[in-house]
């Protein structure tokens, strides 16, 4: 079972990341759940999404201690890093997140300068996909191809022109 | 023998329960005659109000449902949207339509629901025993305005027909009275037209009927009828308020 908590600012595509992970997990034939935070937080504040990918039926969709914490901004790291188990993983958008030594000694940390890389690709909005690519490589929990396939489900048909740049971003993150 | 006058076929032979001199019976009969003349008895669905006319369905061979007080236009909306080919009308008093159901009537009218509303305005709550209605006149005495309606305390007689006329969803609105034969003939014409507007799928239509409630006005039936001419029509003038049916 893999419990993933993705968190960041509203607008960083946190819920999209959650949906992508859940879709990719479904394609693996696994049980999945994705539980977004909702409410006033949705607009501009912090957003998070709890995703579980499991071989067994998922009892509770809530996550007390994530196996993997994906943080897209500093506030999310400060809020959630202490929940991660000692053998857990933190994937951080190091363009916006600074990680202190205290955390490093306790938990494995993968740093991805996702904002900078996304700007290089020409679209800041795909920073989340770069981080997802890195997640796929680091954990092996979901196949990169399945994440790519999920893009079609996440974007409505009228936005399918955006799929290509997102595929590029997933590849870029996977190859760090 | 040639039959020259009788009860409309769309009505039952149950005697009205209304008080002597009450206008409801006349309005009911006019609706029955119009339904007969338009040949729509088997496709008409009515929604009576909460108020004196709540058991209106006893008097008609027409499908009907009760509605909660004031929600009449919302219930009628639900029916009409299921059966756009049927003729759906609401029958509402001044309490039902102009007080508790103000929201429902304004929005049904503004949506241009293909409904016909017969709005009976007698300036007083009948069934509950003569309380003030939103249409009660200034200085008019009721059980809840024992000293007469004081505008400073409780505002003015509301002019719902004029209010609804400004919404674009309404096609035809006329104010009539049933206090004397000449007015009754005009009232029937208006009611017929309102149903025709619906049959033509044009939008919302309403006839406001000034009616007499002698018991709660504390007048004889004759005085109540005269009071409509001499007093009530000063605040609520008769006539067409809006007619876009020819456009």
């Amino acid at each position: 079972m893999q419990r993933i908590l993705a968190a960041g600012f509203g607008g960083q595509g946190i819920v999209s990341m959650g949906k992508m992970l859940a879709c990719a997990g479904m394609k693996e034939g696994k049980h999945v759940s994705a539980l977004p935070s909702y409410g006033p937080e949705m607009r501009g504040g912090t957003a998070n999404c709890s995703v579980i990918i499991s071989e067994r039926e998922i009892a509770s969709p809530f996550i007390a201690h994530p196996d993997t914490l994906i943080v897209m901004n500093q506030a999310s790291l400060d809020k959630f890093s202490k929940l991660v188990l000692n053998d857990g993983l933190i994937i951080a958008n190091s363009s916006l997140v600074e990680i202190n030594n205290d955390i490093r000694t306790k938990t494995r940390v993968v740093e991805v300068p996702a904002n900078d890389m996304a700007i290089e690709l020409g679209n800041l909005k795909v920073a989340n996909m770069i981080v997802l690519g890195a997640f796929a490589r680091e954990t092996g929990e979901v196949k990169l191809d399945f994440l790519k396939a999920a893009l079609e489900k996440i974007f409505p048909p009228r936005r399918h022109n955006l799929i290509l740049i997102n595929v590029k971003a997933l590849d870029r993150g996977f190859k760090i | 023998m040639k039959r020259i006058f009788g009860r409309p076929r769309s009505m039952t032979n149950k005697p009205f329960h209304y008080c002597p001199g009450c206008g409801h019976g006349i309005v009911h009969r006019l609706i029955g005659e119009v339904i007969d003349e338009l040949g729509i008895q088997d496709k008409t669905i009515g929604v009576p109000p909460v108020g004196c006319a709540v058991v209106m369905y006893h008097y008609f061979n027409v499908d009907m449902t009760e509605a909660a007080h004031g929600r009449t236009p919302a219930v009628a909306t639900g029916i009409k949207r299921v059966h756009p080919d049927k003729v759906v009308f609401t029958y509402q008093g001044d309490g039902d339509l102009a007080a508790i159901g103000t929201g429902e009537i304004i929005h049904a009218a503004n949506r241009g629901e293909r409904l016909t509303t017969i709005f009976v305005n007698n300036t007083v709550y009948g069934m509950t025993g003569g309380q003030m209605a939103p249409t009660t006149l200034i200085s008019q005495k009721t059980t809840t305005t024992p000293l007469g309606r004081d505008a400073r305390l409780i505002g003015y007689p509301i002019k719902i027909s004029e209010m609804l006329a400004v919404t674009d969803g309404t096609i035809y609105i006329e104010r009539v009275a049933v206090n004397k034969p000449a007015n009754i003939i005009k009232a029937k014409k208006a009611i017929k037209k309102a149903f025709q507007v619906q049959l033509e799928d044009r939008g919302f239509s309403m006839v406001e009927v000034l009616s007499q409630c002698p018991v709660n006005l504390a007048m004889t039936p004759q005085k109540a009828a005269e009071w409509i001419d001499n007093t009530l029509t000063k605040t609520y003038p008769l006539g067409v308020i809006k007619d876009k049916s020819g456009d």
Partner: protein
Amino acid sequence: MSEKVLMCGNGAIGEGAIQAGCRHYFGYPITPQNELTAYMAERLGELGGVFIQSESELAAINMVFGASAAGARAMTSSSSPGISLKQEGISYIAGAELPCVIVNVMRAGPGLGDITPSQADYFQAVKGGGHGDYRLITIGPASVQELYDWTARAFYLADKYRNPVMILGDGFLGQMMEPLEIRKIKEPKLPEKTWALTGAKDRKANIIRTLMLKVGELEEHNKKIQNKYKRMEKELIEYEAVLTDDAEIILVAYGTCARVCKESVFLLRKEGIKAGLIRPITLWPYPSAIIRKISNNVRYVLTVEMSAGQMVEDVKLAVLGRCPVHFYGRMGGGVPTSEEIVKKVKKLEAHRPEDDQPLAGRHKGTKRKE
């Protein structure tokens, strides 16, 4: 099996309604159920159905009244403050014996509260809500698939019994995304709605009413609907039992809380505590019999809710003192965590029930772990 899609609970409710043949939806926006209203607007637009964003919740429930009276499968949805507004209409619908589906995606109150999840409308849903003696068939699904399946089934049950059905979800269930199989809906054939308002063509006029002024008529009507409720109590009860066969303690929870409790049961089992779970699916009629039966064999029952303790009253009525009934709850948007529940059980395990009440007062069926 058709391919599964990832869908949020609110969307699943909408699709369940569509698949059940609902083509009339009336609603007023309120968080956290807006995805459902938007879903119905889109789907009914595609299908040529009727979607009205009404001027108020009062209007919405009364449009449902009208559409149902006209013979259609109709639905409205809202969240707690909006459901309070609908109570007038719900009472009329129950009194007039009209079928419809009402969805409450509960949020925390009282008052405007906030938009976080809650289960604090349980009393309102299962004990009445509006005026008069009536019952709603009340369903508490606990997954996206169940929201779909039960919403679809709700329309059948509503038609079968001529009674409003309430789907009682909460903000998290509405927002949560899980795989959904959009199953084809198969339901037994129902008699034609000869009572519906369709125009009195070649038949006597149909009248739908709740006002009954003749002496004794209203009492007879009440007896009739109460008999119907008794029939529902015999025919409708559904629940899920998890590891109850050898359980020494039982958790009782529904909806979101039941999902958390299920995990707690697994955690407790790992620690050697034989816990089980009863998850009522029908909240009215309530699965009292199974809880009563199990209460003979367990040391205590722990009810878990996102409220100050509402369903726990029904659990106590089922148990009738056969064993202690404890409660753990969170309010105002708080969700009990599986760890909190485990902690609560451990605290109860350490506590000797003899300290609370004299032995003589205890039911002889109650066992204590030595």
